[in-house]
């Protein structure tokens, strides 16, 4: 049993660590996105420089989050990667299909509320969570 122990590594711990890193970068990205959205009106009275700085920081953290997502997927085992890929495919499809429809409804003034990109991001996030959950259940 110890034959492969030399290069063995506890998978649950490895994934928990990777998830924690991803959670931190995601939280930082959400926080800086909120700051970039609310800061101009609530904190620095629409001054240009702070807005540009916060947006740049937000972009930097966003790219770091993307890198962490890549590392997280690489840390998953092959079944985990398969589940993630399926969920990502469904999410991408939902985004591509629903995005233009949403834009069309908005442009035809058929929506009773102001359309925002955040709605599409929320839809994609929920789709990914649901697809990931379904995939995990499928192979349980």
């Amino acid at each position, binding site marked *: *049993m110890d034959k*492969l*122990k030399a*290069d*063995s590594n506890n*998978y649950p711990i490895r994934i928990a660590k990777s998830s924690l890193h991803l959670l931190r970068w995601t939280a930082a990205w959400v926080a800086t996105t909120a700051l970039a959205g609310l800061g101009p009106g609530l904190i620095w009275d629409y001054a240009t420089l702070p807005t540009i700085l916060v947006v740049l920081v937000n972009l930097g953290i966003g790219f770091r989050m993307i890198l962490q997502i890549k590392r997280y997927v690489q840390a998953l085992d*092959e*079944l985990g990667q398969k589940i993630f890929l399926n969920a990502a495919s469904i999410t991408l499809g939902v985004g591509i299909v629903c995005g233009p429809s949403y834009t069309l409804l908005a442009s035809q003034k058929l929506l009773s509320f102001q359309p925002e990109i955040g709605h599409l991001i929320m839809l994609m996030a929920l789709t990914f969570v649901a697809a990931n959950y379904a995939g995990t259940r499928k*192979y349980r």
Partner: protein
Amino acid sequence: MKNRFKVLRAERDWTQAQLADELRVSRQTVNAIETGKFDPSLKLAFKAARLFELGIEDIFQDEAAF
């Protein structure tokens, strides 16, 4: 694809968690392989063969051959 993962594991008195740790995968992956829901990659199959000290064909069989 059929496999003898469960039998070979039971013969060695290993738990799914122990086997998963040796193969560096999740327990869910070991369970999915044992129940035939998931076919492992060639890399993982070779790793399992090394661990069980058997040939790949002693662990995995093509269902079309039956």
